[in-house]
Each structure stands twice: as structure tokens, then as C-alpha cells.
């Protein structure tokens, strides 16, 4: 699936990252929209004939002190920003460029999958980013399906606040907004051929979302607040490196199938294993306690998606651990989503289309 914005971003990076790109004006062709609001990225998906158009922004911001000249420079370079409390909030993909320039980390409006309580302007930031991806609806009440995480099982945190804020944002824009669990979005995107029956796991930066669906009915869905960020942070702390650097190593070099070559890889391997075990144990726990899980006569598939699932060997490791743990369900395969970074958005789009019909 080719994508203009992805290409543009890649081109920007090749230029040395000092030329923050701004997404071209999103033309509204109408029709339902799928929106993945993740900890790391916000991805939108729209149907364009037989293809799906994906647009994404980094779900991050970077603040610089507000000044006239800075403002003029940002405008001149088409950098997305807004001004608040004497600061310019550079948002989206450009934030990463600025962060790299200043050799620091971007700030996130979403933390561990939910609106960040730490960031005062999280809501403004996320609304601004969403607006760069989702143009005003052509007709009032057009459908947008946005992803939300499942309730975390290991805390008492609810996704209600997060869900409601996002819904209101989209509704205020003139859309009819419906939420989809991230894990279920994976199922909607990947398991159509299996009657939407199976387990979808979205392994994002802030959390992992799990959903078990039977015939498109989400029997259970939940999240664990461990994700790519957790691995990065824990490994960084263990080896004395920044999380950003660990993330780069993880994304570019990590192969869990191979013997670790250094302490970073060793540590990454350890924390990945911890993450995957946590995930499988959570699945085991939920299945055994659920009153709704049906008795299945056929084995089901597990689909992994999200950036955290992308390093080589994650799937194999997951499958191995899954087999090692006894679960009351039989699994036919563990596979990666076709387009792991966009799976959730695509699944959300599928639901939006289905709802529209």
C-alpha cells in the first residue's frame, strides 16, 4: 500500500531532518474514517476506491518559547504549531525533528495509551493533530470510528475519560463518532476471512491491547499498560541509555531470534520476553475468568500488530510462549498483521464502513 505522506516523511528524513514537513491539506472526499489514536502515532484511514488512504502524524509535541521570529520561521516552513501560554506547541511529525535537533525527547499527549494527565495541553495537542488528519466533514454526521484502548486489567484506571474526550472532539467537528477497541480493530482488519473470530493484539508504545472476538462479537477486550515505551524505558534504565536511543536500536536492529550480541540486545530480549509473558498470562487469566468465552470446536488465529510487535522474532517468541502456556482455547496460528503500523486504523475504517452500511 503506497502512501504519499509516508513517502514525504521519508524524504524529509533523508534531507537531514531539519526540514519539518507539514502534511498537505487533507482533501475531504467524504466517506467514513478510521482513526487510530495511539500513544506514538495517530493514523487515519479512508477508503479511496479499492485502496485505503493512510495518513499519520506523530502523536507528540515539542514546545519552544514563543517569539515573533520563531513564529515566522515555523509558518514559513509549514510547521504545525499552536501558541499557548507563551509557548509554541509544535505538533505531529515536526515535533520529532525539533526534538532530535535539540537532542531531547518529544512530549506525548497520550501516555500509556490514555490522555496524559501530566500534560496540561494534552487535549489541545491531540485535537490539533486530529484536525490535521481529519478534515471537517462534508456532511454533518459522517462517520468516524476511533480507537480506544481496553480497560487496563492491572490498574483501576478507566478508559472512559479518554474515550469521552475523543468522542466529543470528533463530534464537535461534526462527525458521528464511534469507538472501537484497538484489539478488535486488529480483528476487523485482519480476520475477515475467519469470520472475525480470533484474538487481535495491538502492541503499541504505551500499552498492549487484546481482544477476543467470536463472529465479530468482542467477547473480551482489555489492555495491559506495558508496551514499547515500557521496554525502551526499562532497557534504557538497565543499560544507561536514553529511551529514544533504545527505541532506535529496537526498531532498526533487534532480532529476538538471534543470540543477543550486546547488553542492550540482551536487555531488550529480557524485557520483550517479560512483555510477551505478561501479555499471555493476561490472556490466560481473562479467558479462564470470563463468563462469556464460548467453547470453540475449531482453533483460532492470533494476530499481532503495532510497532512494538515489529522487531524480528517477536511473533515467534509469542507463539512459543503461547504454546508453553496452557490456555482453554486452541490456536491455529500466530501471525503478524499485514501492515502492522496501520492495522488499527484500517480496522476502525472497516467498522465505520460496516456501521455506515
Amino acid at each position, binding site marked *: 500500500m503506497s502512501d504519499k505522506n509516508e513517502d514525504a516523511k521519508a524524504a524529509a528524513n533523508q534531507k537531514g531532518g531539519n526540514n519539518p514537513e507539514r502534511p498537505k491539506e487533507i482533501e475531504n472526499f467524504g466517506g467514513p474514517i478510521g482513526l487510530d489514536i495511539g500513544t506514538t502515532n495517530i493514523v487515519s484511514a479512508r477508503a479511496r476506491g479499492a485502496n485505503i488512504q493512510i495518513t499519520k502524524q506523530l502523536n507528540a509535541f515539542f514546545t519552544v518559547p514563543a517569539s515573533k521570529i520563531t513564529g515566522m520561521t515555523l509558518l514559513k516552513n509549514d510547521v504545525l504549531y499552536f501558541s499557548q501560554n507563551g509557548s509554541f506547541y509544535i505538533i505531529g511529525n515536526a515535533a520529532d525533528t525539533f526534538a532530535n535537533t535539540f537532542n531531547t525527547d518529544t512530549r506525548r499527549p497520550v501516555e500509556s495509551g490514555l490522555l496524559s494527565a501530566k500534560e496540561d495541553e494534552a487535549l489541545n495537542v491531540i485535537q490539533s493533530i486530529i484536525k490535521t488528519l481529519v478534515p471537517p466533514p462534508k456532511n454533518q454526521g459522517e462517520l468516524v470510528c476511533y480507537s480506544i484502548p481496553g480497560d487496563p486489567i492491572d490498574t483501576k484506571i478507566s478508559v472512559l475519560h479518554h474515550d469521552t474526550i475523543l468522542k466529543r472532539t470528533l463530534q464537535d467537528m461534526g462527525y458521528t463518532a464511534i469507538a472501537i477497541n484497538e484489539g478488535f480493530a486488529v480483528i476487523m482488519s485482519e480476520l475477515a476471512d475467519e*469470520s472475525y473470530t480470533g484474538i487481535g493484539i495491538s502492541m503499541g508504545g504505551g500499552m498492549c491491547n487484546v481482544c477476543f472476538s*467470536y*463472529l*465479530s*462479537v*468482542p*467477547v*473480551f477486550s482489555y489492555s495491559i499498560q506495558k508496551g514499547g515505551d515500557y521496554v525502551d524505558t526499562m532497557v534504557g534504565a538497565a543499560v544507561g541509555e536514553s529511551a529514544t536511543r533504545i527505541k532506535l536500536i529496537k526498531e532498526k536492529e533487534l532480532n529476538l531470534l538471534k543470540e543477543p550480541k550486546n547488553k542492550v540486545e540482551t536487555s531488550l530480549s529480557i524485557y520483550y520476553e517479560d512483555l510477551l509473558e505478561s501479555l499471555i498470562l493476561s490472556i490466560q487469566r481473562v479467558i479462564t475468568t470470563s*463468563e*462469556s*468465552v*464460548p*467453547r*470453540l*470446536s475449531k482453533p483460532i488465529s492470533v494476530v499481532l500488530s503495532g510497532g512494538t510487535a515489529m522487531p524480528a522474532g517477536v511473533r515467534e517468541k509469542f507463539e512459543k510462549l503461547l504454546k508453553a502456556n496452557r490456555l482453554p482455547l486452541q490456536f491455529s496460528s500466530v501471525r503478524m498483521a499485514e501492515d502492522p503500523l496501520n492495522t488499527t486504523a484500517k480496522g476502525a475504517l472497516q467498522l465505520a464502513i460496516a456501521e455506515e452500511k
Partner: protein
Amino acid sequence: MAVPILVFSVDKTRGSLLLKIIENSGFKAKLFDNSLELEYAVRRRRPPIIVFDTKHYQSRQFKIISAFHSRFQDAELILFADPAEIPSFIAAGIKKECCFSDPINPDEVTLKIREIYFIKNRAFLKIKTYFLLLCSLFEGTRDNPYIVFTKKIIMAIAMALAVVVGIAGGFIFYNMSDLPKVQLLESYVPFESSFLYASDGVELAEFYLERRKFVPFYKIPKHVKNAFIAVEDAHFYEHHGIDFFRTIAAFINNIRAGGAVQGGSTITQQLAKMLFLTPEKSLSRKIKEAAISMQIEGRYKKDEILGFYLNQAYFGARAYGIEAASQTYFGKRTEELNVTDAAMLAALPKAPTDYSPFKNPQKAFARRNLALKSMLDRGFIDAEVYAASAKEPVPEYISRKKYAAPYFVEYIRNVMEQKFGDRLYTAGLRIYTTLDLTLQKKAERAVANGAAALARAGMPGVEAALIAIDLNTGAIRAMVGGTNFQKSQFNRATQAMRQTGSVFKPIVYLTAFKNGYSADSTVDDTEVTYSSKDGGQQWTPHNYSRRFYGRVTLRTALSHSLNAATVALANAIGMDKVIATARSIGVTSNIYPHLPAAIGVSEMTLIELTYAYTTFANGRRFDPMVYEKITDRYNIKVEDNAPKGVQAIDPANVAKMRDVLNAVVTEGTSIAAQSLNRPVYGKTGTTDEYKDAWFIGFDDRLAVGVWVGRDNNRPIGDDMSGSHAALPIWINFMKED
């Protein structure tokens, strides 16, 4: 089936799950999480199945379930409950196999719902399945190997079907090609008996191939028609020739029974078979039968068809058609039949012999009452009539009436057979004969008495024959061919060739009169020996009295039956003339062309000679006349048989003949006939050794011939001359009553 399966669960996930499971199996379903809404929905449209998930249901008393179960018993309840609670549901009447516990097993649920649903909606689902399959085929799902395969199978079946239909069509067409024309029914003329009537109109006999008398359908009483409809074809007035349901039912019953136990033919089909087809059992015949039946139905009214059928059917005892059957079994006409009679007749055509009241009265009784029951069941008669009719006995055998004049009937049958051939037995002719039944009875009595008298006189086994011919018309008025027709059908009046003796002599005298002689002319009664032309044979005729009377008048010679004088006379005029005279008055038998023939050595029949005497009486020669007129079945005259006498003897010679023949009675061998006290004329005849005794004579009305003799040509008895053996019978017959 528009009413969906209702699913209730307060647990949204479980409810959705159950809903999906059901929908995924192809059923419509609706989810409720509120019991009030569920109750409302159930009341509004009764669902076939209610799936009730008790998980998290607030009231553990489950009153709603009991209520559903008792109020909507045609709806099946499927429950999901804790295992501990299931026994209480079962106790409340919920089927055990409809109670499930966790985890939800989609296969189990689907199976149960399908099972219930399919049982409840079997027919609808079948139709739906076929319809969907057809839709799939038309939509064309090239990628689905099953549909492609199914398509091929259906195509193959369709092609096979087309071939079968083609062959069947061809076969039917082939069979239709030589279909008889139903239009022939326009001129429907069933074989009908011909009837013989005496001159006074009394029926004498019936000649038939199929004993039948046609009766038009409008003369057949309604209850008679109803009886046949009830027994043979209950839907006669509804179908169009073929009763498909009955045919199929009969087919199935026959297969079950492994043989033909039930007929599926309608009355129309039976008619088609009887009229146009052979009784062979073949598919070809069945097809033709069906085709003809439909044609008949298209052309004729139901009552007409029923009329044809009733006139055509065979009822046993050689009775064809309802009229003949009515006469045979009840001695009634069809119009006179009552309900019981009608039921009896309706019971017969299926197996006329088996159910014949004459042969198997008990079976006939049972079968007739079955027919009555059918009439009752169809509402043709009420219970009262049924009860009364069912008690009636079946008819007993009526011995067939004997022909009043069997020899005459047999004689006329031969005559008519020569005239009409086989039509005599099929054309329904009405033959009005010349027979006078009174005279016939008199004749039979006279013959019987004569034979009895001879028997009493020690001469048993003597046969006698009599024939009486009307002088004015030549019509036969009485004919007795023997003493016992049952014993011997040989007709001695018409078939027996016997030497005539002296009854031939009047022909010699007539020849003489024609050649100028008179009754007073004389002839020598002397002993003369005649030689044959070659001189090889010599013959000297003697008189009965063994005396010769010298010169005698012809009157004397004949009245005393003098052989020598008669031979002398014949010799004088020539035998060829005598023979010519014989021929002129109707004698056709061979006549010995020599003198002995003059005194009756040639063999002739009684009828032949009696007709000759008829000519003596008034000069006119008649051919035997046995009927006056013949009409067809519609009483339209076919032939009017007017007397056709030919003047064969001039009146002067008639007078001479009357003179000499009267002298026989007044002064000759037949003096006994004077007892009749009226002028009568005649001549006796006796052959050698009293083998034949004749008397043929006439009065002013009838010529009557009597012959007495034995079939074996042995002597009757001593002194049994014509005047002793035959004349008494003649006198007896000629006596005024």
C-alpha cells in the same frame, strides 16, 4: 418465516454472542436485555424459539420462563443457566435437551436451534433452500466448486429429463397416431340383440352376440346413475376423463399389494376401453385410453357418457347393457329399477361372474350392500333407504324362457342369417314373423298327442312334423319340426328328406289336368310291367290293397291312391312333364326321372310338398314366407314382406285338383277327415314298410302337412299308413277349438 428467534440476556456480550451464533447459522434473531420488552415481543408475534440466558438475570425465580413455557407452548425455550439451576427448570417442564450451561457452545446451540427450527419449518425451509440454490445458479458463482458441481448435476438431470420427456412424448405421439376417432360415438350403435315376434307381437326369441337392448341415457333413472357413480367413479362429475388422484392412489395401493387390487379407471376410461380398445394391459393402451377419455369428455355431456357406459357394460349372464341386465336379473325395464336393483347392477361390472347373484348369491349380497354403502356415503341415499335396501334379497335365477316355437325360430334364424349375416346378432333388428302362436300351440299339441298315441299303441320313438301355411299369403303360420326340440333340433318339417309316397301323386294328376285330362277321365289300373329303357330293369307297380281296379276315373285313382293307375297315367303323359309340373309349383328336390317317382319314391321335405299343396289350393305358388316385416332398432322399417304369389295353376285345373283332393276325403283314403265337418282337401302318403306316413291337405284357409316316421328310417309300425299315423294329427290340428 418472518418471526425471528428471540434472544434474551442481560449480559451484553453474551447476548451479542448468542445473537451472532444464531444469525451465523442463517436464522433471524433479535436480542433483548430487558424482560419487559421481551414479553411484549413474545406477545406480539409468537417466536418459534426463545433463547433465554439466565446469567446475571436479576430475579432468580424465573417466573418469566414459567410463564413463557405455559402460555406459549408452541414456542421452544432454550435456556442457559448455572448447572445447579438446571434441574429446577427441567422440573418446571423445560426440556432437558434445551438446557445449557457455560461455556456457551456455539455448535450445540446451532445444532439445537436448527433441529427445532427445521422440525417446525420443514416445508418452508425446503422451498427456501431450493430457491436459494436456484438463485445461486442464476447469479452464477463460478468460483464455488460446489455450486459449479451442483450446476453440472442439475444440467445432467435436466438433459436426462429432456431425453425422457422426449422419448415419452414420442411414444405418446406414436400411440396417438392411430387413435380411433371419438366422433364415431356420434353414431354410437352398440351391438344389440335382434328380436323375433309372432304375428300377434309376442316376443318369440332374441338373437344376439351381446345380449343388449339400447336405452337412451335420459330414460335411465337418476338413482341408477348414482349407483354406478358411487361404485365406479365417485368424482365422475368433477374430473375431465382422468381422475389423477385416484389413479395415483390405485397405483400406490397396487404396488403395496403387489398386484392389481384397485382400478384407477374412471367411467370414461372404462368406456374408452370398451368401445375402442382391446383389453390388453399395456402402457400403449393406457395412453390411448387416457387420450380417448379426454376426447370423449370434451365432446359429450357427462350424462351422455354415463349413458354410453351403461349401455355398453357387461353385466354377466350374457347381458350387455343396463336394459338387458335389468331384464335378465329382475325381469324389469331399466326405468322400473329401484335403488336396491340399481345397487345390485352397479356391483356387477367389476366382476360379473364372481358377483353374479345367480352363481354366488352371498358374494353378490355383500357386494351389493357395499354399493349401497357407497351410495349412502356419497349422500345419494339416506340411512333409512340404505337400511331397508340392505335387507332385500338378491334376485334368484330365473330359468330362461323357452322359445314358443323352437323349430320355427331355428328355421327363421337360418333364413335371417342368410339374409343379414352377422348383423342379425348385432343390429337390433325386430323381425315380425308370420307365426300364429295360437296355431303353433295347437300344432305342437297335435304333434305331441299324435306321437303319444303312437307310443301308447306300442310305437315309441316315432317322430312327427307339421307345417301350416296360409293359403292366401304363403305365410307359415305354424311349424313343428319334431316331438322334442331339446332332444333333437333336427327339423323334420324343413330338413328331413323322405320318400313322399302317395302325397306326390297329385302332381301327376295336375300334370294330367294340364294335359287335357279331367277328373272323370279314365285310366287303366291293371298289372303292367315297365322296363327301363335299356330293358335291364323291370318293375310292376302294385296297389296298397294288392288288387287292380281296371279302368278307373282319375278321381277314383287318386282318391284310392291307386299306384298302377297313377303310374299308367304318368307313363301316358311322360315323367318329364310331371317333373316340370312339380318344378312349376315349387318342388325343388331331385325327382327320380322315371315312373316310380310318380308314386313317390323321390325324397322331399314336408315344407316343400306342403307349399305344392298350397298351390293346388288356389293356383298361386308361394315361396316360403316366414316374416311380415323387419324393422331396425329404431323401429324404422327395413323390409316389408308382402306376399308374392305367382299364378302357377290356372283356375280350371285348381278346381280339378280341389275336386280330386276332396274326393280323397269324401270317398278315399282320408274319410276320417270328414269329422271336421267342413270341406277339406288332401292326400295321404305311405312309403314302403310304413317307414313314412304323410297327410298333406288344406281347407279354405290353411295348407297343412303332416309327416310321421322314424329318424332312423325304420318302419313306424304295422299298418301305419298315412291315414292311420299322419291323418289323425292333421285332423287334430284342423279341428275348430
